[in-house]
């Protein structure tokens, strides 16, 4: 990537400049306010209410919703799994994305074509991906069971969405397959930003391939961290794959924050408790946000 080396300058601090800046920022500001901030604040209030579905009636109940949520075992279980899902998918996306990026980052004819082919899973819609994996993992007629049983890796077909552990693995697999091309592309682009001089020096110093790989990782630590943070956020927001494949089951084994709040509100009609669960998540995520935003703002300068 050729980068323009002109230092970033800004206009002088004249009031008309500020007015212009605020003017161009305002449409997005208003939309985010109406579509995101207003509902999130209302939801925070709702966590302190008992809401009667279908009417506008509600009672203030203090922290009763929070107590109810914390008393049940469901919240803690989904909390743990959501964290695990976030961490595991981030690690796996790094590994798989890096694997393909390294394989593609060699002098070889046709790499552009193969890179294009490998982007394909990312252009498959999330809901299609969920249907597809549900079918691939079908217990009776699915391809995965067929191939594993034929190759004698499994003695008999596995009900992939039926057991707690295999269902967790299934939703992770489906998710990773679709998203890894994003990591691959970002890492590939990042490789191009490393000055070849470093490798020449490393070669002269007698560094082997493994040491050169770690050199690359260290030099690209910022972009790797950025991608990991994005992956982590995406995992937290992931709903479709899990909802279509397992509905959060079996017995809540794949319930994440997202499916849990949705089930508690729109399925069980308990809006107050759903809001309390969500509010606790937001508090938890704020800790993470501080890290994320400081990282992004630091990159700016």
């Amino acid at each position, binding site marked *: 990537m050729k980068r*323009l080396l*002109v230092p970033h300058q*800004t206009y002088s*601090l004249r009031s008309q400049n*500020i007015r*212009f*800046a605020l003017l*161009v*920022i305002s*449409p*997005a500001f208003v*939309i*985010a306010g109406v*579509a*995101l901030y207003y*509902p999130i604040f*209302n*939801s925070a209030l709702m966590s302190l209410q008992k809401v009667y579905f279908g009417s506008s009636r509600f009672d203030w109940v203090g922290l009763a919703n929070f107590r109810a949520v914390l008393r049940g075992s469901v919240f803690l279980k989904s909390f743990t799994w959501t964290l695990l899902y976030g961490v595991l998918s981030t690690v796996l996306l790094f590994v798989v994305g890096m694997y393909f990026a390294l*394989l593609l980052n*060699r002098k*070889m004819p046709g790499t552009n074509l193969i890179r294009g082919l*490998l982007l394909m*899973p990312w*252009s498959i*819609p999330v*809901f*299609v991906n969920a*249907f*597809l994996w549900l*079918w691939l993992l*079908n217990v*009776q*007629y699915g391809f995965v069971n*067929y191939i594993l049983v034929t190759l004698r890796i499994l003695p008999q077909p596995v009900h992939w969405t039926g057991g707690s552990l295999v269902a967790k693995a299934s939703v992770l697999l489906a998710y990773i*397959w679709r998203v890894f091309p994003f990591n691959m*592309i*970002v890492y590939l*682009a990042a490789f191009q*930003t490393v000055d070849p001089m470093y490798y020449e020096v490393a070669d002269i110093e007698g560094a082997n391939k493994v040491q050169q790989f770690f050199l690359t990782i260290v030099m690209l630590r910022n*972009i790797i961290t*950025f991608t990991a943070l994005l992956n982590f*956020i995406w995992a*937290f*927001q992931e709903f*479709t794959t899990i909802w*279509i494949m397992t509905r959060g089951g079996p017995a809540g084994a794949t319930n994440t*924050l*997202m499916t849990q*709040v*949705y089930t508690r*509100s*729109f399925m069980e009609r308990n*809006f107050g408790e*759903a*809001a309390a669960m969500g509010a606790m*998540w937001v508090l938890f*995520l704020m800790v993470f946000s501080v890290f994320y*935003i400081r990282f992004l*703002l630091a*990159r700016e300068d």
Partner: protein
Amino acid sequence: MRSRGDRIKYYLGNLLLIASVAVVYIPIFWMISTSLKTAPEVFKWPPSLIPLRPVLESYRELFVPENRYFQFFRNSLIVAGATTAIALAAAVLSGYGLSRFKFKGRSAILVFFLITQMFPFSLVLLTLFLFFSKLHILNSYFGLILAFVGISLAFSIWMLKSYFDTIPYELEEAATIDGSGRFGTLFRIILPLIGPGAIATAIFIFITSWNEYLLAATLAMSEKVRTLPPGLSMSYMSFLKISWNGLMAASVVASLPSVILFAFLQRWFIQGLAAGAVKG
């Protein structure tokens, strides 16, 4: 190629790459293969990898009016198209404002947008649903588009702001001295320069909207405005026995817009991502 060992490593690498690509492509192959099978062949054991007698039956069925497939498809196109146009316009303006002007509160505004990525959508949805119902925009394109634009903004603004940061400031200075107005400068000088960044962002928004299931299923319950994700899920999965060949045909067609978009605009997408997201 310096030595024999290097050559062997080179070919082993190629072999590994090709084998890996083949594994990645199994699901896509399986999807297309199933979509061309007849119902009895879908439930055949052992399964045939390539349909014994490929038929277009499942695709033809998408056109049956009662399936409403193309109605959902059209709704998805309308909503994703409008969302892309509106969110891109808003994000270009904001990205420009946040990249070019330093003023007190600028970081705060940036944080204001970025932090919305942490809002769990299901929590937003709780009261967004009630809010939309009060405004009478449940079951409307407008409501869906508003919600979709909302969730696309944070990432889009960040991408475009980063992209604007890479464009030299002298160009605008020259235009300002020439007497070009602020909007004139923005539209005639700057916009043409952010092509790859804008295309990358547009693809991102389009795919986000095309994929969105949770908001679509809750904010648009009427069939009139229902989009593909909840539409397909309701038509093919509400029965005990799922018609897999039908669902796979519907899935292949539902993938076409984003796959085509990628096939043609990939180069710009990678360029835009590289310049916007991959800095430093």
